[in-house]
C-alpha cells in the first residue's frame, strides 16, 4: 500500500534551513550543510559565467573569419572560460557542495572536523574568485588557463592578479581537502569501519589526497610566474638559461591530477546513484573503493603525457606514456563494476539515473580517447588540436557535469525537502545529453582534420563542423536553462519530499529532509554496510511514483 504523501507540516519542522534566520546567520554559519548551500550558489553562478563565455566563443567560431569580436577579445574569452570553469566550478563544485553536505551525514557525524576552517574556505574561494575575475576583466589576461611561459611572462596584458586569485582558490581547495581527510579519520560513527564507508566517502577521500599533495605545487608555480612577470627574476626565462619545459612539468604535476580532482567526485556521486536506483549493493565494493585510491596515486605519475611534443625526452615520454595506460585501468574497473551492479537489480529510471547513464557514456568515450591520446604517436597528431578539446570536455563537461546534475537531482529532496518536476527533469536530461554530443563530436573530427585549438579564425575546410558544434552548444545551453528553471521553481511549489523519497538505503537518508541542524539527535551506531537491499525492511517508506 503506497504511503500517504508527506504534508507541508513535515516540511516546516525545525531543520538546518530554518534553524536561524537572516543573512548574517548564513554568512557566519559553521554548519556544513549551510556552507554546502553557499558553495552551490557560488559555483553555479561561476558555471553560468563560464557558460556565457563558452557561448560567445562558439558564436565567434561560427564563421571562419571575425564574427562578433576581435582576436584580442577572443583570446581573453577562452582564458576567462578556462579559468572560471576549472578553478571556480569544476574543482570546488562537487566537493564543496555535495562533499560538505553529505560527508558528515554519511559518517554519522555532527559536522566536519574543522567547521571554522570550512567557512574560511568559502571566503577564500570568494576572495580568489573576485581577484581572478577582476584581474582578467581589468587586465584582459590572454594567456589561456595554462599560463605557459614565456608567453605569460612577456604578454602585455596583466597576468599577476589572475595567478594570485588562482593561488588563493588553491588554498581554499587545500583546506577543504585537509578538512575532509581529518573528518574521515576521526569522526566516523561507532561501527562505521573503513570497509563499511560509503563509496562516496572513499572517492572524496581520494580527491582530498590529490588536493593536498598537488595544489601547493600549482600555487607555487603560479606564484613563480607572477614573480617572473612582475620582477623578472628569470626562473623560466629562456634568455637567462631558464627552461620553459620545467614550467610545463610543474604545471602539469598539478593539472593532470587536477583532472582527477574533477572526475573522482563525479565517480563518488555515481557510485551512490547506481546503488540507489538499481536498489542493489555495488558489485565489487573493494575494487571500486581502492580504485579511487589507485587513481589518486597513479594519477601523479602521468603528467608528462601532456608534453609529448614539447621537447621532452623520448625516454621520459615513454615512461609517462606507459604509466598513463595504467591509470586508465582504474577507471575501467569502475565502469565494469557499475555496469555489473545493474545485473539482477531493480532499476528505476529517474532523472538521476538518466544522468548516470550519460556519465557512463561520456566517461567511457572520454576515457578511451584519453588512452588513445597517451598512445604516444597518435598524440603527436592530436596534441593541441580540437581532438584534445573534445576529449577533455567529454571528461570534464560530459562526465563531471552529468554526475553533478545526477547528484543535484538525487540529493535535491534531501537538501531542500522538495521534489522538482520529474517530467521536465527527464526531458532536460535528454536534451543536455544530446546537445552535448552535438557540440563535441564535431570537435573530435575537427581535431582529426588538424584544426589547432585556440584559433580565432580558421581555414574554410573547418567551417561545416564548426557550425555543427555551435548549433549543438545552443542546444546544450537551452537544456541547462530548463534545469535551472524547474529546480528554482521547485523550491517554492515543489511537492514535499519526505525523508526518503527514493527509498534509498544510503546512511544520509536516515535523517529528515531537510536534515536538522545537528544532523542526528544522537550519534548513530552503524551495524551494516550502506545500500544493502537484500531484505525487505519493515516500515520502509518511499514516494509513490
Amino acid at each position, binding site marked *: 500500500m*503506497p504511503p500517504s504523501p508527506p504534508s507541508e507540516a513535515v516540511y516546516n519542522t525545525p531543520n538546518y534551513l530554518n534553524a536561524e534566520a537572516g543573512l548574517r546567520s548564513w554568512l557566519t554559519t559553521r554548519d556544513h550543510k549551510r556552507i554546502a548551500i553557499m558553495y552551490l550558489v557560488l559555483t553555479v553562478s561561476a558555471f553560468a559565467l563560464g557558460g556565457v563565455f563558452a557561448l560567445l566563443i562558439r558564436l565567434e567560431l561560427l564563421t571562419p573569419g571575425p564574427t562578433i569580436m576581435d582576436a584580442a577579445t577572443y583570446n581573453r574569452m577562452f582564458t576567462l572560460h578556462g579559468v572560471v570553469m576549472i578553478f571556480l566550478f569544476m574543482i570546488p563544485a562537487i566537493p564543496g557542495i555535495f562533499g560538505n553536505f553529505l560527508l558528515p551525514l554519511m559518517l554519522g557525524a555532527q559536522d566536519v572536523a574543522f567547521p571554522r576552517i570550512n567557512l574560511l574556505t568559502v571566503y577564500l574561494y570568494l576572495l580568489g574568485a573576485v581577484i581572478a575575475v577582476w584581474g582578467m576583466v581589468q587586465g584582459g589576461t590572454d594567456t589561456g588557463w595554462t599560463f605557459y611561459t614565456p608567453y605569460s611572462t612577456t604578454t602585455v596584458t596583466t597576468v599577476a592578479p589572475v595567478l594570485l586569485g588562482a593561488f588563493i582558490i588553491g588554498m581554499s581547495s587545500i583546506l577543504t581537502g585537509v578538512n575532509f581527510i581529518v573528518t574521515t579519520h576521526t569522526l566516523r560513527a561507532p561501527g562505521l569501519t573503513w570497509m563499511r564507508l560509503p563509496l562516496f566517502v572513499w572517492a572524496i577521500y581520494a580527491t582530498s589526497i590529490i588536493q593536498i599533495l598537488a595544489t601547493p605545487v600549482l600555487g607555487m608555480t603560479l606564484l613563480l610566474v607572477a614573480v617572473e612577470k612582475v620582477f623578472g627574476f628569470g626562473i623560466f626565462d629562456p634568455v637567462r638559461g631558464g627552461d620553459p619545459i620545467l614550467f610545463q612539468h610543474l604545471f602539469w604535476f598539478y593539472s593532470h591530477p587536477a583532472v582527477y580532482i574533477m572526475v573522482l567526485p563525479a565517480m563518488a556521486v555515481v557510485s551512490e546513484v547506481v546503488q540507489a536506483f538499481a536498489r542493489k549493493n555495488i558489485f565489487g565494493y573493494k575494487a571500486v573503493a581502492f580504485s579511487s585510491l589507485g587513481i589518486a596515486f597513479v594519477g601523479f605519475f602521468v603528467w608528462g603525457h601532456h608534453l609529448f611534443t614539447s621537447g621532452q625526452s623520448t625516454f621520459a*615520454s615513454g615512461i609517462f606514456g606507459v604509466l598513463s595506460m595504467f591509470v586508465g585501468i582504474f577507471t575501467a574497473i569502475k565502469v565494469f563494476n557499475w555496469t555489473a551492479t545493474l545485473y539482477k537489480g531493480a532499476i528505476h529510471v529517474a532523472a538521476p539515473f538518466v544522468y548516470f547513464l550519460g556519465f557512463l557514456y561520456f566517461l567511457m*568515450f572520454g576515457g578511451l580517447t584519453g588512452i588513445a591520446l597517451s598512445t604516444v604517436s597518435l598524440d603527436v*597528431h592530436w596534441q593541441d588540436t580540437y581532438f584534445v578539446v573534445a576529449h577533455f570536455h567529454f571528461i570534464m563537461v560530459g562526465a563531471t557535469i552529468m554526475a553533478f546534475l545526477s547528484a543535484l537531482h538525487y540529493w535535491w529532496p534531501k537538501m531542500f525537502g522538495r521534489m522538482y518536476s520529474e517530467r521536465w527533469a527527464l526531458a532536460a536530461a535528454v536534451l543536455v545529453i544530446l546537445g552535448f554530443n552535438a557540440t563535441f563530436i564535431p570537435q573530435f573530427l575537427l581535431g582529426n582534420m588538424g584544426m589547432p585549438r585556440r584559433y580565432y579564425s580558421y581555414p574554410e575546410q573547418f567551417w561545416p563542423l564548426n557550425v555543427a558544434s555551435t548549433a549543438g552548444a545552443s542546444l546544450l545551453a537551452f537544456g541547462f536553462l530548463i534545469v535551472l528553471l524547474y529546480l528554482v521553481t521547485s523550491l517554492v511549489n515543489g511537492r514535499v519530499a519526505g525523508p526518503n523519497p527514493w527509498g534509498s538505503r544510503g546512511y544520509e537518508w536516515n535523517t529528515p529532509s531537510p536534515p536538522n541542524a545537528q544532523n542526528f539527535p544522537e550519534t548513530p551506531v552503524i551495524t551494516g554496510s550502506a545500500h544493502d537491499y537484500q531484505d525487505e525492511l519493515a516500515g520502509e517508506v518511499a514516494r509513490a511514483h
Partner: protein
Amino acid sequence: MNELNELMRNLLWLPPQASEYARSVDHLHFFVFLVAQLGAWAVVVTTLVFIVRYRRRRLLQSTEHVEPRAIHEVVFIGLPLVLFLVWFAIGFPQYVTLQTPPKDARDVYVLAKKWMWKFAYPGGPNSTDVLRVPAGRPVRLLLTSRDVIHSFFVPALRLKQDVLPGRYTQTWFKATEPGRYQIFCAEYCGLGHSSMLGEVVVMPAEEFDAWMERERLSNHPAAQDEQPVASEDVDPRSSLLEQGRRVAVLQGCFKCHSVDGSQHIGPTWLDLYNAKVKLETGKTVVADEAYLTRSMMEPNADIVAGYKAVMPTFQGKLSAPEAAAIVEFIKSLRTDAPSPAPQKGPIYAPIPAK
C-alpha cells in the same frame, strides 16, 4: 587494403597521408578507433539490456546480494590493460622513429616568430612560410623560436613539434607524395596565432635539386615567399615595426594621425602607448595594446576628448597580425626611445652531433 585505408580515413575526416609514417600512424588510429568503439558499445548495449531486463517491478523491491568472484575483477583489469598496452606497444616505437632522425637526413633550420615561419637551408636559400622539400628523401628540421613557444604542425605528415625560444628541438619526416600541405602553429602564441600558417611544398626530387641549384646560384630572391632571412636578421621586433609602418601607410592612417606629435584630425601616435588618455565621457584610460586594438576595430567606442567620431572601423580590413604590427609600431614611437642597437641574427653553424 588501400580502399579500406581510404574509407577509414574519410570516415574519420583525416587529411591526406603525405608520408609512410603518416600512413602507419593512421593504421594505429584505425585499430584504436575500432577496438575502442567495439568495447564501449558493448558496455552501452549491456547496460541497456540490464535496464530493460531488470527494471523495477515493485516500489521497494529487494534484490539479491551479488559479490564478484576474483576472476571477474581479474578480467576487468586484465582485458583493458592488455589492449591498452598493445596500443602503446605499437604507438611508442612510432614515436621513437619520429624522434630519431636518420643520419642521411638533410637539415633545414626553422625559425618561428610572431607570427611567421622562416626556413633556412645551410649553405642555401632561405624562405618565409614555404618549406620546399624533396619527395622520398628524409629531412631533419631543427627548430627554434625568437619569442615565445610555437608549435610546428603539419597534419598531412601527422607531425608536430614545439618550437622553443633559445634552444633547438628536432623532428624529421620523409614525404612521399608530392603536393602542398598546410603548416599550422599549434601552440598558442598571441593575437596572430591562428594566422601563423605556412605550407610544405613536396617536390619530386629532381625538381627540388634543380630548384636548389638555381637558388644557390642566383643572388636575388626568386619569389615573394622566399625573402632571405639575411635581409631581416635584425631584431625581430624591428621587422614587425617595419610591417606596422607599411600597413599604416597602406591603410591611410597618416591622413589623420601624425607620428611627430603635431595636431591633426586624430590624436598623434607619438608617446601614445601607455599614456593616460582622457575620453569624451570624462573617463581616463591607459592606451595599452587592448585600447589601441579596440580603437582600430571599434573607433567610436572610446572617443578621445576634443576629437570627433569620424574614424571608420577597420574591422575586417586589418588582419589580427596587421593590427598587432601597427600597435607594435605605435609602441615604438617614443620621444625617449633608445636607438635600436644592431643585433646579429642567427648564422646557422651545423650542429655537430646527431
